[in-house]
C-alpha cells in the first residue's frame, strides 16, 4: 500500500506543480509581477554595471559579520516594504468591507495576506533587523576581531535568505497559507488546507529557523569565548548582555519550532496523526508546542531592542546607565520567566483554573523585570544632559507606548478577562503596541545611532524627526481604535462585518493611521537618499560622532576588516568613555592577524536547502533528493578544506593601521 502510494507520487516528475498555479486574479498577479521585477531588475542592473564579480567577491562569499549584518538589514527592509503592502491591503479591506460592500479582496485571499503579514514581519523583518544589528555590533563591543564561527554565521544568513526566497516564491507560483501566522490545526491539516499554502509556510520557516538556530549558537559562543582580555561579563556593554539573553532563548526555543513544523509537515505529507482531529491526534498539543517556542520568540526579538535602548539612553543622556546590575538581572529574569508563560496565549483551551491561575500569575510577574528596565531608562535620562536626537525620540515614544501596551497585557493575564478578549482586536492592538514599539522602534533607534559608524555620515536629523512623528501619530491612530473595537467584540482576521455593528468609523480611523505610517516610511526612505546626498556636508561624521561610551566608537570609520589592529585593554564598564579621559597613546607592537577566507559554500548549502524546500512543497521528490545532496556536498566539501584563513603579517597590519590614522588626521 505504501509502495503504491509512493509510486503514484513519483509518477509525475513535477509533483503537484503545474501552470494552473500561476496567479490569475489581478491583485495577486500585480503583486507577483512586482515581486519578480525586483530580483530581475537587480540582476539586469548588476549585469549592466558589470558588478557580478564585485558582488560575488565582496558580498555573496563574505565571512565578515559587518557585511553579513548589512545584508540582513537590507533583506529586512525589503521584506518590511512587502509586509507594509500587506498592511495597506488589510486596512483597506477592513475599512471598506461592511454591509453590502465586500471590499477589494476575497475571503481566502484576505486570510493569505493576514498570514503572510504576520509571518513576514516576525521572521523576516524583526528577526532580520535583529540579526543584522547583532552581527554589526556585538564583535565590536566585546573587542573581538571576528565572531566565533564565521562560516556558520554566513551559512545562517543564507538559510535565512533561502527561507525568505521561498515565502516570496509562494506569491508567484501556488498560494500561501490562509491559516494565520501560526497555522493552528486542524485548519492547517491537509484535509482543510489541501493546497500548497501551508507547506510553503512550513518550509520557509523551517529553513529560516535553522538559520536562526545556527546564528544563535554562534553568538552565544562569541560572547562567552571571544571577549577581549579584561572584559569580564559584568563589564560588557548592556547590548551584549541583552543579546546573550536573547540568543540563549534562541538555542532553547528554536529546536521546539523545528520539531513542531516537522510534525505538521509529516501530518500533511506522509499522513501521520500528530494534530489531526481523528486517529488519536491531539491538536492542542500543536498549540502548546508552537507557543512554547512562540512566547520566548517575543522576548528573543525584544531583548536586543532593550539592549539598544540601554545604549541610547546612556549615550544621549551623557550619563552612565542607571542600575547596570539590575538591568542584567532583569534580562535573566525575563529569559527564565519567558519559558513559563506560554499558556496565556490560550487560556480558553480549558486547562482548568489551577493551570490558568499559574500561568496568569507568571505572566503578571514577568511584567516586573520589564518594569525595572523601564524605570532604569527613565532614571538614566533623569538629570542627564539630554542630546535630543532621533534615537532618543524613539526611546521616549517606546517608553510611553510600551507601558500602555504592557498594561493591556497585564489586564489580559487575568484569565477571566482573557476569556472576553481572546482572539479579539484588543489582543491585536496589544501585541502590535509591544512589538512595534518594543522591537521596531528599538531597531530604528539602533540603526540611526550606529549608522555613522559604518557609513561615515549621520542620517538627516530633520527628516528623521518627520518620520518619527508620522510613525508615532499613525501608529496610535491605527491601533487605539483596535482596542476599542476589541471591547466592542470585533475578532481578529475579519474580512467582512455587518454594518449594523457600527464598527466602520473606527476601522476607517485605523486606515487613516496607516496613511500616516506610510508617510513615515516615505520620510525614512527620503532620509536615506537625502543623507547620502549630503554625506560630505554637515552630516559627515568622524569615528565617534555621539561621544560614545563603548568600544565600537574607538575604531576608525570605515572599520578595517580585522576590527582592532591592536586588541583594546579593558578594565572598566564603558571602556571607551574611560579611555577618552586619559591621554593614553597605544605604542604596543602589532601582531599578525588571521582572517577567514571568503567561501561560497554557505550560499551553496542554503541553495540546496531552498531547492529541497521548494521540491517538498510541490512533492517533486527527485528534486528534493537533489537539493539535499547539494547541501550535504557543500558541507563535506567545506570540511575537507583546511586552509580557511589567511594571515596578515604584523607589518601589513601596521601599514594599514597607520594609513587610516593619516586619513583621520587629514
Amino acid at each position: 500500500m505504501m509502495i503504491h502510494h509512493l509510486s503514484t507520487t513519483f509518477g509525475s516528475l513535477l509533483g503537484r506543480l503545474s501552470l494552473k498555479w500561476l496567479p490569475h486574479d489581478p491583485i495577486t498577479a500585480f503583486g507577483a509581477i512586482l515581486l519578480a521585477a525586483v530580483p530581475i531588475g537587480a540582476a539586469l542592473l548588476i549585469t549592466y554595471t558589470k558588478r557580478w564579480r564585485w558582488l560575488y567577491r565582496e558580498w555573496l562569499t563574505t565571512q565578515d559579520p559587518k557585511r553579513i549584518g548589512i545584508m540582513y538589514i537590507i533583506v529586512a527592509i525589503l521584506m518590511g516594504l512587502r509586509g507594509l503592502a500587506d498592511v495597506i491591503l488589510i486596512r483597506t479591506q477592513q475599512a471598506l468591507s461592511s454591509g453590502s460592500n465586500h471590499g477589494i479582496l476575497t475571503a481566502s485571499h484576505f486570510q493569505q495576506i493576514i498570514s503572510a503579514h504576520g509571518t513576514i514581519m516576525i521572521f523576516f523583518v524583526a528577526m532580520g533587523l535583529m540579526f543584522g544589528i547583532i552581527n554589526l555590533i556585538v564583535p565590536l563591543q566585546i573587542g573581538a576581531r571576528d565572531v566565533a564561527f564565521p562560516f556558520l554565521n554566513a551559512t545562517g544568513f543564507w538559510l535565512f535568505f533561502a527561507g525568505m526566497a521561498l515565502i516570496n516564491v509562494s506569491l508567484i507560483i501556488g498560494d500561501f497559507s490562509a491559516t494565520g501566522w501560526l497555522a493552528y490545526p486542524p485548519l492547517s491539516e491537509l484535509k482543510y488546507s489541501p493546497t500548497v499554502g501551508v507547506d510553503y509556510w512550513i518550509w520557509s520557516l523551517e529553513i529560516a529557523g535553522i538559520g536562526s538556530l545556527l546564528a544563535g549558537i554562534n553568538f552565544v559562543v562569541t560572547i562567552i569565548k571571544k571577549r577581549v582580555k579584561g572584559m569580564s561579563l559584568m563589564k560588557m556593554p548592556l547590548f551584549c548582555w541583552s543579546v546573550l539573553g536573547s540568543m540563549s532563548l534562541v538555542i532553547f526555543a528554536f529546536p521546539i519550532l523545528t520539531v513542531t513544523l516537522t510534525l505538521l509537515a509529516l501530518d500533511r505529507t506522509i499522513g501521520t496523526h500528530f494534530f489531526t482531529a481523528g486517529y488519536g491526534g491531539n491538536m492542542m498539543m500543536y498549540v502548546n508546542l508552537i507557543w512554547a517556542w512562540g512566547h520566548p520568540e517575543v522576548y528573543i526579538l525584544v531583548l536586543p531592542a532593550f539592549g539598544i535602548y540601554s545604549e541610547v539612553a546612556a549615550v544621549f543622556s551623557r550619563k552612565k546607565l542607571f542600575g547596570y546590575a539590575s538591568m542584567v538581572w532583569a534580562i535573566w529574569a525575563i529569559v527564565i520567566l519567558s519559558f513559563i508563560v506560554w499558556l496565556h496565549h490560550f487560556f480558553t483551551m480549558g486547562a482548568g483554573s489551577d493551570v490558568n491561575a499559574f500561568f496568569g500569575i507568571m505572566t503578571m510577574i514577568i511584567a516586573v523585570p520589564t518594569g525595572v528596565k523601564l524605570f532604569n531608562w527613565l532614571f538614566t535620562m533623569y538629570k542627564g544632559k539630554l542630546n535630543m536626537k532621533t534615537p532618543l525620540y524613539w526611546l521616549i515614544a517606546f517608553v510611553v507606548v510600551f507601558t500602555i501596551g504592557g498594561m493591556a497585557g497585564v489586564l489580559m493575564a487575568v484569565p477571566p478577562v482573557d476569556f472576553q478578549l481572546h482572539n479579539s482586536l484588543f489582543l491585536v492592538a496589544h501585541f502590535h503596541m509591544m512589538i512595534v514599539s518594543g522591537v521596531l522602534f528599538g531597531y530604528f533607534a539602533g540603526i540611526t545611532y550606529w549608522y555613522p559608524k559604518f557609513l561615515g555620515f549621520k542620517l538627516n536629523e530633520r527628516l528623521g524627526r518627520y518620520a518619527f512623528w508620522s510613525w508615532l501619530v499613525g501608529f496610535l491612530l491605527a491601533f487605539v481604535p483596535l482596542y476599542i473595537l476589541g471591547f466592542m467584540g470585533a475578532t481578529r482576521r475579519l474580512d467582512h462585518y455587518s454594518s449594523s455593528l457600527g464598527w466602520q468609523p473606527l476601522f476607517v480611523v485605523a486606515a487613516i493611521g496607516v496613511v500616516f505610517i506610510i508617510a513615515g516610511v516615505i520620510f525614512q526612505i527620503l532620509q536615506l537618499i537625502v543623507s547620502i546626498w549630503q554625506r560630505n556636508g554637515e552630516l559627515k561624521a568622524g569615528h565617534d560622532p555621539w561621544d560614545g561610551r563603548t568600544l565600537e566608537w574607538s575604531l576608525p570609520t570605515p572599520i578595517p576588516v580585522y576590527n582592532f589592529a591592536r586588541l583594546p585593554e579593558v578594565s572598566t564598564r564603558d571602556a571607551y568613555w574611560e579611555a577618552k579621559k586619559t591621554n593614553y597613546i597605544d605604542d604596543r607592537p602589532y601582531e599578525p592577524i588571521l582572517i577567514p577566507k571568503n567561501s561560497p559554500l554557505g550560499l551553496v548549502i542554503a541553495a540546496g536547502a531552498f531547492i529541497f524546500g521548494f521540491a517538498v512543497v510541490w512533492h517533486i521528490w527527485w528534486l528534493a533528493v537533489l537539493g539535499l545532496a547539494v547541501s550535504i556536498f557543500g558541507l563535506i566539501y567545506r570540511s575537507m578544506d583546511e586552509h580557511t584563513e589567511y594571515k596578515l603579517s604584523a607589518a601589513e597590519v601596521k601599514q594599514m593601521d597607520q594609513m587610516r590614522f593619516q586619513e583621520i588626521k587629514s
Partner: protein
Amino acid sequence: MSSISQNAEVARADRLIERHEKDNTTIFGFWVYLMTDCVLFASLFATFAVLRNNTFGGPSGATLFSLPYVLVETLSLLTSSFTCGLALVSAQARRKTQTIIWFIITFALGLTFLSLELSEFHKFVVMGDSWRRSGFLSAYFTLVGTHGLHISIGLLWMAVMIVFIYKRGINKLTMKRIRMLSMFWHFLDVVWIFIFTIVYLFGALHA
C-alpha cells in the same frame, strides 16, 4: 640575540595558546549545539508522552514491541559507543591505523543498529501498523526515526572522518573533529537509553 630568540619563543607559545583556545571554542560550540539537539529530542519525547495512549483501536507498545529484539539493538549501539571511545583513545595516542580500525568497527556496529531498527519498522509497516495507523504510532515512528536519522548522519560523518584520517593522518584538526564526532556518538547513545526506557520498557510493561 638571546632576547630575540626568547621573544620568538614567547610569541610561539602565545600562538599555541591561541590555537588551543580556538579549539576549545569549537568544542564549546559543539556542546551548545548538542544542547539544542537535546531540546529537539525533549520536544519529541513530550509529544510521545502525550500520544502514547492514543492508539485509536490500533496496537499498543505492549503488543508490538519485542524486548529481546530491542535488547540486541541496544547492545550493538552501546558497544559501538565503547569502540568509539577506543577510537578516541587511539587517536590521542596518535595511532592512525588503530584509530581507523576502531572507527570501522564502530561504523559496522552503528550500521547493525540501524538495520535492526529499519527492519523493525519494516515489520510494523507490513503488518499494517505504520505511522498512519494512530497518534501513538506517529509519535513512535517519529521519535525513534529521528534518532535513526541522527545515527545515519553520524555514520555519514564517520565515513567521511575515516577517509579524512586516512588521507591526512592525525593532526590538530582531525583530533578536534574526532573529539566532536565521539561527543555526538555518545550523545546519541544517551538519547537511545531514554528511548529504550520510555518507549520500549514502559511501553512493554504498560499492557
